[in-house]
């Protein structure tokens, strides 16, 4: 059967849970299940476990104080909390907010909501190379700019933004700085203090922790209106009984991904580069989507001209390979990836994009298998296309 192979190359979408992470969270599910807000022994044990996880996570990201970590249900909630919470508490009557145009929807959607609530939002276009230039941020800043949110590593094209410089520019004009670091923690060196940001988003399931846990780093004294209100947990910034097991899993996972970063990052980068070389040399009319040199080691993003992304994805799936695509079809909308469009990629090419992302369990063998399987799939789909020859020359593939 074709499904025998199991070649997972979509680590940017989600990661397997590391068995060590499961082991770390099981005691909390089995024994330390108390409510961390209760005063008796079981509650205190859970509280201690939660606060230990907070300290460990704070240490991993270079926060000065564990109280700067707010545990959330994931990256999306953390993004929403920062994007709505900081402006709404700092300038309840409205002001100006800057976000980059190629943010994750978890940032863009709350930005749209801010517009409905009286804020002016600038959606800053990335440079065609696929990154946000600090000069462009500087030019967009206004006296009433309250927040700048620019993602650290882009989840599609994998480019890394110069966050420290952007944060400095924001601070010069008195704006707070948020960065979505869901894709960078554990991929490149990361330290909130070195970056100088006021807030940063993290997601557990991108770093080998389970789905449903994440965190917002919020520098002390940064104003924040809560998104979820109630019993006042997380120092009144995020109500709801805390997911202690999730927090432990998350802190453990964060320690693990940063511990072997020095050896993993070059290993992943080599796999990524082999993959890109292999594709671009085997197939004509293929290219890397964004040329900016600062990039995540684990994401390869390519335009495969004249083929539709979902079709490639499904054909690869039939061979046991998992990847993702920025084609419209895969998103349920009719628009291809807003990220690709934002860097000037024409829609007809954006429909033919694929993202291949590697991770902890990816081997050279996986890449060679991909390179063996992929070119014939593209050739077959190009052969089936009514327009490939017309649009891209006479020899398909």
């Amino acid at each position, binding site marked *: 059967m074709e499904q025998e192979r199991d070649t997972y190359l979509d680590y*940017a*979408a*989600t990661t397997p849970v590391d068995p060590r992470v499961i082991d770390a969270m099981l005691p909390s599910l089995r024994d330390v299940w108390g409510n961390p807000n209760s005063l008796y022994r079981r509650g205190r044990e859970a509280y201690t476990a939660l606060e230990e996880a907070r300290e460990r996570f704070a240490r991993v990201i270079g926060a000065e104080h564990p109280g700067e970590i707010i545990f959330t249900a994931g990256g999306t909630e953390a993004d929403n909390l920062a994007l709505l919470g900081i402006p709404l508490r700092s300038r309840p009557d409205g002001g100006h907010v800057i976000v980059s145009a190629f943010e994750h*929807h978890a940032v863009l959607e709350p930005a749209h909501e801010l517009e409905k609530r009286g804020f002016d939002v600038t959606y800053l276009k990335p440079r065609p190379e696929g990154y946000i230039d600090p000069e462009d941020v500087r030019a967009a800043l206004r006296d009433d700019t309250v927040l700048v949110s620019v993602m650290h590593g882009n*989840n599609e094209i994998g480019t890394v933004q110069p966050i420290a410089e952007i944060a400095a520019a924001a601070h010069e004009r008195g704006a707070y700085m948020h960065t979505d670091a869901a894709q960078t923690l554990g991929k490149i060196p990361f330290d909130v203090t070195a970056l100088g940001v006021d807030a940063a988003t993290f*997601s557990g*399931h*991108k770093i080998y922790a389970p789905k449903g846990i994440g965190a917002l780093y919020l520098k002390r004294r940064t104003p924040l209106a809560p998104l979820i209100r109630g019993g006042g947990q997380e120092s009144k910034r995020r109500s709801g009984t805390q997911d202690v097991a999730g927090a432990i899993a998350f802190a453990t996972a964060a320690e693990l991904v940063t511990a072997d970063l020095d050896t993993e990052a070059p290993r992943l980068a080599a796999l990524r580069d082999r993959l890109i070389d292999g594709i671009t040399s085997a197939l004509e009319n293929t290219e890397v989507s964004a040329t900016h040199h600062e990039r995540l080691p684990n994401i390869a993003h390519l335009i495969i001209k*004249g*083929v*539709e*992304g*979902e*079709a490639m994805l*499904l*054909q690869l799936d*039939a061979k046991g390979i998992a990847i*993702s695509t920025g*084609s*419209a*079809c*895969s*998103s*349920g*909308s*009719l628009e*291809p990836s807003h990220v690709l469009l934002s860097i000037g990629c*024409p*829609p*007809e090419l954006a*429909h033919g994009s694929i993202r291949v992302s590697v991770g902890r369990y990816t081997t050279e063998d996986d890449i060679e298998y991909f390179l063996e399987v992929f070119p014939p799939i593209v050739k077959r*789909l190009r052969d*089936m*296309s*009514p*327009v*490939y020859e017309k*649009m891209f020359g006479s020899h398909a593939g």
Partner: protein
Amino acid sequence: MLYTDKVMDHFNNPRNVGVLDDADGVGEVGNPVCGDMMKISIKVAEDRIADIRFQTLGCGAAIATSSIVTEMAREMTLEEAVAITKKQVADELGGLPPAKMHCSVLATDGLKAAVDDYLVKNGREPISGGLEHDDPNFDPHAVPHEEACETEG
């Protein structure tokens, strides 16, 4: 979002792929900018579809609906062929995810365009009544709210 086995079968083993060199009618619909494009060529004998081939650039549903529509149309009268609805195409495949329903329009439109092309080339009146895709009221975004597709991370 899940495709039925039949969709996957038609996607992985599409029937009637290609172009008929001596086609009597050719329909080309869609737009690469929207990510999908389809070309159908037909041979007509006694106002029935005697042979049929397709080429499609598009997603799994676009390819599967193209494939099945060629199977459905073969041997049909021209009238029967242009009357195939997108719902019939989807039903024949055991259903399509709501967000993919618009793909079946591509297939029926391609067929209609090919039939009309044959008729017009032969000095007759077109019978399809126009393409659904060109209908200003056609809104491919109109997906039932609760079942709209979801995006991945």
